[in-house]
C-alpha cells in the first residue's frame, strides 16, 4: 500500500509557497496574465515505498490574481461520453479560458 501526496505551506503575508511533492501531480498555477505553469515536478517517489524517503521543496511566489490548483487522477482520468479522458490538457484548457474566476466556480467548471 502506498500513497501519493502534495503538501504546501503558504506564508499568508509574504505570498510564498513551499511545495513538497511525494509522487503526486504537480501544482498548477495560472497567473494573472493567463500563463500556466507547473510546480513540484521533481516530486520524488510515493510514500510507503521506501522506509525513510527524502523530498525536495520548491519555493513559489504568488502574485495577486494567481490561481493555484491541486488535483488527483480522478480529474485527469475522468471520461466523457466518448470514453475520452479529460487529461491535463483539459485542465489547462479550462484554466486558460477563465480569467477572473473564484475557486468554487473553477471547481464547478472542472466538474462539468
Amino acid at each position, binding site marked *: 500500500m*502506498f500513497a501519493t501526496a502534495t503538501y*504546501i505551506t503558504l506564508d499568508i503575508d509574504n505570498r510564498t509557497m513551499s511545495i513538497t511533492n511525494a509522487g503526486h501531480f504537480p501544482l498548477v498555477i495560472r497567473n494573472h496574465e493567463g500563463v500556466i505553469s507547473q510546480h513540484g515536478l521533481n516530486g520524488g517517489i510515493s510514500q510507503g515505498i521506501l522506509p525513510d524517503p527524502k523530498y525536495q521543496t520548491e519555493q513559489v511566489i504568488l502574485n*495577486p490574481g494567481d490561481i493555484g490548483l491541486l488535483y488527483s*487522477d480522478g480529474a485527469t482520468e475522468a471520461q466523457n461520453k466518448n470514453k475520452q479522458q479529460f487529461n491535463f490538457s483539459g485542465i489547462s484548457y479550462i484554466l486558460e479560458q477563465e480569467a477572473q474566476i473564484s475557486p468554487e466556480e473553477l471547481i464547478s467548471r472542472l466538474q462539468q
Partner: protein
Amino acid sequence: MLFTNFNIAFEPFRFENSYEYFAPYYFKKDGGINFTYIGGENYKYFSWDWYRIPKEKKSPQWTEPFFDKDAGDIIMSTYSAPFYKETKGKKEFLGVVTADISLSGLTEILASLKITPTGFAFLIFKNGTFIFHPQVNFIMNETIFTLAKKLDDSSLKNIGIQMVNGNIDALTNTSLIPGQKSWVFFHPITTNGWSMSVVIPENDVFADMHGITNRVTLISTIGLVFLLICVIWISRSITKPIRVLSNVTDEIAVGNLDVPIPAIKTSDEIGRLVDSYIHMRDNMKKYIEEVIHLTADKERMESELNFAAQVQQGFLPQEHPKYLNYEFGAVTVPAKFVGGNFYDLIPLQNGHLGLALGDFSGKGVSQLFTWRNS
C-alpha cells in the same frame, strides 16, 4: 332310366308281302302294357324322322325329346336303330327298332344335382332345346339361343354354339344367375349329341376362400384395434406424468416452488426425470434462500459503507479558513462509497497555512485510518 314303349317297324312288304305297314307297338298306358299296330294311310311312318333318319344314316339315332301325353306328360326321347337282313354277305335294310325312353329319371338326377347352394345343371338337345332346366317352363319350350336373345347375352349365345358343337369348356357368364358371375362348365354326351352343363356362381366356388379372407380380415382388424388401444394406453401412460410435469413447470415458472410434484417411482426415464425435477425444485428453493440472504447482507454492507462514507466526509474540512486576499475551494467525489482522495487545510503558527492533498492506491476503507494515523 326307364324304357316305356317298344316298336319294330318294317319296310313296306318286307315282313310279309301282304302288309305295307307292319309295326307292332308295345306301350305303357294306365299302369299296364298295351299292344297295337301302328302305321296306315293316316300314319305313314316311313316319312317320320324316327324312321327315316336312322335308315338314311345307317346308324342308331336319338330323336328330339317330346312330351308323351299318354304316359302322363313325361319327357320322352326315342332311340331308333336300323336292322338288316344279311344274305350272302350283303346287307339288306329291313326296318327300324325303336325304344322310347322316359327322361324323367334323368331330369330327377339332374334336378337333384346340388353342386353348390345356388348352382344348377341343365341339359340341351343338339339343336339347343332345353331338355332339362330347373325352370320347368323352359323345358321343350326354350332353346339356349332364344334364352340368350331374351337375356340379351351374347356370351350365352356363344356358350350355346360351343355346346351344340360338342365342345368341352368352362366359360363365364353373368346372366344365367342374374347379378352374379358364374362359371358354366359343359360337356357333350357323345352318344346322342346332347350337351350337359353345370352352372356354378363364382361366389359359391370361392365361398370358402371368401370366408377365410373375411375371418383373416376380422382377426387382423381386431388385432389392429387392440394394438391401437395398447399404443394409446402406453403413450398416455408415458405422457401423463409429462403433462403433470408440464403443469408443475408452469407453476414453478410463476414462482410457486411449493407446488407438489407427484411422486412417480418408476425406474424409467420418466421416473428419473421426476426425481431430477424434485431435486431441481429443492435446489432452486435453496438458491433463492441464499439470494435473499446475500441481498440482506449486501444491503447491510451498503448501509455500513454509506456510514463509512459519511465518516470519511466528516474527516474533510467542513469550513475553509478565511484570509484576506485568498479564496479556497475543494471537492472530493468518491468513485465508490469510500474515496481514496483526501485534502485538508491546516492553519499553522506564524501566519502559515498548510495545504495537503493525498491519493491512496486503491480506494478502500482500511486506508482511511492509515492516513489519519500516519
